[in-house]
């Protein structure tokens, strides 16, 4: 089956969307990224990545949750889709397979 390519940063953003479980939008995703991975990225990067993920069908979005601190403007809330979670699982599966193939001592600190 044709697989849509998922980049490393895209994978991170997608994981954050999954983590936030429906509460993810630009701000929370940026903060989660900074918190969990230590990466500080511009807002545009996150924004573009989310659009791209949506084009690929890995997330869906809807507008909602207007708050006063935003001047009544709505947020675009993201939610992971079935293909999105399948893609994440495949990546995880692939990594696990590869790890299980590694001889146990090869990544010991002494060897590197």
């Amino acid at each position, binding site marked *: 089956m*044709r697989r*849509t390519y998922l980049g490393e940063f895209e994978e991170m953003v997608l994981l954050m969307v999954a983590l936030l479980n429906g509460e993810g*939008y*630009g*701000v929370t995703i*940026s*903060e989660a990224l900074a918190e969990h991975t230590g990466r500080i990225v*511009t*807002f*545009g*990067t996150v*924004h*573009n990545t989310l*659009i*791209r993920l*949506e*084009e*690929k*069908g890995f997330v869906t979005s809807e*507008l909602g949750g207007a708050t*006063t*601190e*935003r*001047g009544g*403007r*709505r*947020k*675009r809330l993201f939610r992971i889709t079935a*293909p999105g979670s399948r893609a994440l699982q495949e990546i995880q599966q692939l990594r696990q397979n590869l790890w299980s193939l590694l001889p146990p001592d090869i990544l010991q600190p002494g060897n590197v």
Partner: protein
Amino acid sequence: MKSPVQPPRWAQWLLIRLHPDDTLEEVSGDLDELYTYWYKRSGKARATLYYLLNVMSVLPPFVRRRKTDKQYYRQPDYPATFSIKTMMIQNYLKIAFRNLKRQKVSTSINIIGLAIGLATCILIMLYVQDELSYDRYNEKADRIFRVGLRARLNGEDVSGPILGPNAARDLQQEIPEILKATRLLRGAEFVSNGTSSFKEDNLLYADSNFCEVFTIPFLKGDPKQALTEPNTVVLTEETARKYFGNQNPVGKVLLFSREKTPHRITGVVKNVPANAHFRFDMLVSSPGYDEQHIGWIYSINYYTYVVLPEKYNYKELEAKISRLAEKQIGGELEGFLHLTLKQFREKGDDFGVFLQPLTSIHLHSPFGGNELTPGGNMLYVYVLLAIAAFMLLIACVNFMNLATATAVRRSREIGVRKVLGSVKGQLQQQFLIESVLLAIAALIVGLLIVGLSLPFFNQLTGKILTLSLLTNAFVATGLVVGTVLVGLLAGSYPAFYLSSFKPVVILKGRITAGRGNFNLRSGLVAFQFFVTISMIIATVTADRQLRYMQRQKIGFNREQVLIVHNTQMLSDNETLFRDKIIQSPLVVTGSISGQVPIGNSAHDNSPIMSRENPDKAVMSRFYKVDNDYIPTLGMHVVQGRNFSKNLSTDSSAVILNETAVRALGWQQNPIGRELIGHIDDNGVKTYYRVIGVVSDFHFESLRQKIGPLAMFLGGNSGNILIKTRPGKLPQFLASLKQQWESFSPAAPFSYSFLDDRFKQVYIGEQKIEQVLTLFSGLTIFIACLGLFGLATFTAEQRTKEIGVRKVLGASAGSVVTLLSLDFLKPIVIALAMASPVAWWGMNQWLKEFAYKVTVDWWFFALAGLLAIGIALLTVSFQSIKAALTNPIKSLRSE
């Protein structure tokens, strides 16, 4: 309510102005929220900086635009939108293959029709390309020119491509623009390598600078030194193999002619390219500039070529050369005729020279018989190109017709596709892909046809064409692109026509093609049949003419006559050999003569005058014969008698043909009259007495009129003609060969049969007839395809009408008639238009022949009947099918 902290207004303004509208709401909200967060954590300055940085990151060109909803949600089930196209194309291909498979007959007809059109086109292109490539292999092709002689003598144009031996040297010496001048002289010799001897008909005598002018690569030997010494010879690869096998021939010796003059081999060159205007098996060193015969118009036998500087306008040079020629030729004229060039011109005669570009010799030279090899004809190139264009056009139109006709059957598919959401563009795409697919299949089949028919085509045209030209990247791309274009063009009509149907109408089963379409189609059919009928008439005429020429009474008996060639090589033993042969019980008579009345043989035109009227000269052909000549060839003596061995006075006797008798004005009682047959330089006349008259016989082909002929008794070696009785020919030939070799002549034993030579004379006409038959067959075939397509289309269109007619009581026969008659109209129109055109064209062609058939009315009737018959046969297939369909089937869908 406003948030307590606010990012800078101008940055917000920038964001609002430049950020895409559809995401502005969430993005500006998010950024404001972030600003608040940064403000709390790091203070105003940091927050403002971060804010600016992040605003920049969501401005064009950095920001990614959301696709519009329409683009976005059209195919929500497919994870990736960009794969829709390829998936649909896969689907189109699948449907296309299914369709083509389901309609095997029409698919194969369609492919074959276009394939034949393409194949014809490719073959003709190969031929034309070859014709146009003549002499282009020369590196200096554009700078080489041939100097020819323009001459008018006794009011007759005797121009030719040849000059006297000294022209080349004078040109090179006197005119500085001429970089090189070289000469070629053709010849034939008996050549022996000591053990076996061959007659070499393709000899060229060449100057030592031959290789500096023409590009013929040397395989062995030094091109600069090869022909500098007298009696040296350069062989082609093939000839070298013939004489010496795989040994290196350089330095070896070949013996030339009866005198066995040794010639040293100084080099081996590659075989002459097939597209050269000369052909040689051996290049022999030129006899050199013979000081005794200084001249330009003395022995006019030399093909003279000059090389000019690059980008030099040769027309300018022509004037210069003409001045030199006038000086030289003027001097020579004074020497021979005691006339200045001016006086000579006043007589109405003229001499001059002209330049001919090397690359135009093959196709544009007017001196057919005088050329080194028979030339081509630009007219044929144009005619062939026209045929190719017609064939391709007709094939494309048919392809389109058939594609449309079959596509109409699929209107329901189109309806369903439209209902399910196909837009026009997609349907167009689908049909275009299908027709391109068909066109490519046709190209493949066409190439196969070309590959298979190339040997036959080569035999027909006498060329050595190969497919290698097609492997040229440029040509190959051209072919593929051309085919795809044809596919697109042919597919465009059904694509645009069918995709524009309204689904409701189609699904209700009501499609009608406009009447206008039908007229266009009828016009095309009429055009196709116009071409077809013209071709049929041309073929019939050519066939009649060929048969006429072969059956025409030629005035002598060509059956059972064997000709032994080159008997002059037996020198004194020629008569002995003849006398030995005729003792065989298989031989009736045998005659020695250089003149054979068919094909190329020595001929000599000289004036004869009657004694009583010596001023009136009759140009007549001279035959030197022995007393067995007339009986051997079975010529008919109508008055008087044949030469006799026993009368010594016959040495001053002459036998005339009837035409000569008429020309001399001796219709009454020619026997016993005297004519002047020869006047020597001192004015002494030799008289001959007429002893007999033979009935006219054709001594050339039927293209020429029979001219006056005078036969004299006299030694004239060259051939022995033997009239044989039917019998054991192989044994007889073997014994002849044995006897020939017992004299150990320098020439090998060779022979031919008179009737074979007779056939050879008409080989050109035979080829024309074959080509015509081939092309008329192909046009008939392709025209039938067109008709078939049209018939299918109309039958399809009128299914309902036929159904209603049948329900109302029409018989199958009346329906067939109804459908077929429609097609007779265009054919009758085509016949009416083709007849005068073909009649005119064929009369032009027949003008070449002195003896010819007339173009009879029944040629046209035959062509018309043939066309109508074939057309009805083609149409009836469809119309009978339509007429026999059960009306329930055709009407139920309403």
